[in-house]
């Protein structure tokens, strides 16, 4: 008899539980056990919210809105002042560069893989692009520091700065460790996210749309440009927002390539100038913090980063699920 092993569990035993009579069975125990474990998500969220809000309280109390809009960053005791504004801007600028370069590339990849590539190429090339997501961030940083930065410096930054240096956003002497390099490495890192979601969106466009377009004499590119992309544009927009979410939170590669500026020097006035994002500031500076107030300032920057990334991701989820409902599952 194999069954007597769990017989005791299967036999209902009555017990009082907060005054109500319930049957304690194996199913009851199992269901509640996994339900409690599933609450781990809530616990993690709660702990994060608690640590970040209590941790950042001292600096917010001391500087108030000056913490959010100030530009100075001075940990010297007695003259402490912390302002997170340059790093918020730095995050927005690097993510903007990443989207500006990464989104067209990702769309090209998605279109090529779904609409144009020979069948034999689709799967292996798709794997290669997805492998980009598997490379650890710190290895992007290492490669960026010793290889990629010199490509950009010699073939992009120096020519642009020579001929267009009079435009304010290209001013300064390029050195390779700046906002532009950080933005470019982010562009590479968001490609797998944006490309794979766009690929799903494009392959979910019904074939009847394509057939209808071909039947009125459109070329392949016109079908893609005017019918496929416009049918899937809301899904693609969701993909772009998720890519933005990834770019905003990315830490190590940016921390190694952005040049590690602090204080007013970190204001992103030129692309070819060292800068700092919120994530890279924490990674580069957290361990050097000497006072409680300085640690609190880093935690506060973390809180702003979390709120920004939450806003982006919740927005994207809301947008994407609403699109699914309206269009009847364009992506899934």
């Amino acid at each position: 008899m194999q069954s007597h092993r769990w017989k005791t569990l299967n036999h209902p035993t009555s017990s009082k539980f907060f005054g109500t009579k319930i049957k304690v069975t194996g199913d009851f125990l199992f269901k509640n056990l996994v339900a409690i474990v599933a609450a781990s998500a809530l616990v993690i969220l709660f702990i994060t919210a608690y640590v970040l809000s209590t941790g950042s309280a001292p600096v917010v109390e001391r500087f108030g809105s000056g913490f959010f809009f100030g530009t100075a960053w001075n940990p010297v005791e007695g003259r402490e002042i912390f302002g997170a504004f340059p790093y918020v801007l730095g995050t927005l600028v690097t993510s903007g560069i990443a989207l500006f370069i990464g989104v067209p590339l990702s769309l090209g990849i998605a279109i090529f893989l779904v609409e144009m590539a020979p069948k034999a190429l689709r799967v292996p090339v798709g794997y290669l692009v997805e492998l980009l997501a598997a490379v650890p961030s710190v290895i992007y940083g290492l490669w960026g520091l010793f290889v990629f930065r010199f490509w950009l410096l010699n073939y992009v930054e120096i020519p642009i700065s020579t001929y267009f240096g009079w435009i304010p956003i290209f001013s300064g002497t390029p050195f390779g460790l700046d906002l532009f390099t950080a933005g470019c490495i982010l562009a590479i890192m968001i490609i797998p996210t944006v490309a794979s979601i766009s690929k799903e969106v494009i392959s979910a466009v019904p074939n009847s749309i394509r057939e209808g377009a071909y039947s009125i004499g459109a070329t392949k590119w016109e079908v893609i440009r005017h019918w496929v992309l416009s049918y899937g544009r809301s899904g693609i927009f969701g993909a772009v927002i998720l890519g933005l979410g990834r770019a905003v939170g990315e830490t190590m590669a940016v921390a190694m390539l952005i040049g590690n500026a602090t204080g007013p020097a970190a204001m992103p006035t030129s692309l070819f100038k060292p800068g700092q994002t919120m994530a890279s500031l924490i990674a580069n500076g957290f361990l050097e913090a000497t006072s409680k107030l300085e640690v609190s300032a880093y935690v506060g920057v973390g809180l702003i980063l979390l709120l920004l990334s939450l806003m982006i991701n919740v927005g994207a989820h809301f947008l994407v699920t609403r699109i699914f409902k309206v269009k009847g599952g364009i992506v899934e």
Partner: protein
Amino acid sequence: MSNYGFRKFLNRLFFVLCAACIVIAVIPLLSIIWEVIVRGAPQLSLNFLAATNSGGGIGPAIQGTLILIGLTSLIGVPVGILSGVYLSEFGNNQYAQTMRSINDILTEFPSIVVGITAYGVIVIAIIGSYSAVAGAIALSFILIPIVARTTEESLKLVPNSVREASLALGAHKWRTTLSVVLPSAKSGLVTGTLLAVARIAGETAPLIMTILGNRYFFQGLNQPMAALPLEIWRDSLQPQASLQAQGWGAALILILIVLSLNILVRLASKGRMRK
């Protein structure tokens, strides 16, 4: 149509442009792999893999990363899988829907913020020092939502008829779940879990303020510990060429661990999983 030739030209042009996008995206990948092999391979030797930093090796970092992977899996995988079981098998209610959305949000948390959380809870409040266990907990905060999600997805692929057959034979729901549903979804579970582990193996940011880094071999769960990603980060910022080369060697080991996990899983699952 007089402009038919132009339209055909545009068609060709965009074919070439889209193909060029693929090439532009693949160049970094190939360059990364090439550089890591060319600069990292000359470092490899028994001494490099086993000695401490003062002996010219990265033994502590390799050991630390393996311990981190083990500890994180020990904490994160059971919790993640059981959460996924709840979401898939009992998940037709408001509570489960809430947990599902929270999991979705957690997977998008910036990893450095997770590091601060573990710092505040473990390093400051519970243990009182930078420690191996703080790193493992930070990484499991990243691992749990991913595993919960992939578990839910692979359990949903098990056809309902399988569950009904088991229930019809008189098995209880818990018995059905443990002995029928989970084993049927085994390959999906293994794939999802291994991919999640491969992802956390390369995480660096949450380790900075949790395990701190160390020049010695493992000294206890409540002590600072070394890890490959931290080793790569610190070495790459050193001015000495020999330390930079050591960083490339460490990068080779890390990329071998991460990419081989990914490629093996993908070959083994042959497109069963969408992601």
